[in-house]
């Protein structure tokens, strides 16, 4: 089971691009990388998922280098409403269950 390591917290200002990097040195060949977002008093919400190179959707981009030992979630032009905890998960479904780490608490300031 691949362990993930990500910063505990990050601060940013409105309008900036935020990059959150996650390390997963023991990622397996068939593992995908998935990011979830959790607002206070809400359940986590799926943001993006990828296997290699780059994935982009309406919310974020996910950059994965060739060795797949890390990944970077990129949030363009953040707003106050992007203040949340962001979780990086690898091998997202271990027989169904998600294994969450501590996540990165992003604080966006005006």
């Amino acid at each position, binding site marked *: 089971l691949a362990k993930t390591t990500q910063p505990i917290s990050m601060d940013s200002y409105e309008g900036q691009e935020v990059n959150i990097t996650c390390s997963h040195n023991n990622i397996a060949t068939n593992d995908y990388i998935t990011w979830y977002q959790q607002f206070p*008093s809400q359940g*986590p919400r799926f943001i993006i998922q990828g296997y290699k190179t780059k994935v982009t959707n309406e919310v974020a981009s996910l950059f994965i280098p060739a060795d797949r030992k890390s990944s970077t979630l990129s949030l363009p032009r953040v707003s106050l409403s992007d203040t949340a905890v962001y979780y990086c998960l690898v091998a997202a*479904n271990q027989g*169904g*269950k*998600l294994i969450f780490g*501590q996540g990165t608490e992003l604080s966006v300031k005006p």
Partner: protein
Amino acid sequence: GAGVSQSPSNKVTEKGKDVELRCDPISGHTALYWYRQSLGQGLEFLIYFQGNSAPDKSGLPSDRFSAERTGGSVSTLTIQRTQQEDSAVYLCASSPMGRSSTDTQYFGPGTRLTVL
């Protein structure tokens, strides 16, 4: 469409009492999961239902915890003889298929349980 719903949203109980937490998954989703999130902590897997298969109970912290899923839809998580350390937010999620590393889980708003 309707998302995952949970009830009650908040539950306050006394130590030693039993509680039941309910989860209504997204219609048609095969898989259903329960997680627990303690104050300031990450999410902890509790139990997973996949179709008609035997549930994966590997995350249940003690035999005071049990869950069932009736008719492949609604699920109830029961905690017997509650203890103060059971205080947490209990989250339910469902996914279309389960058993796949690409299957997205959709979470409900959670039930905040407080044991006095």
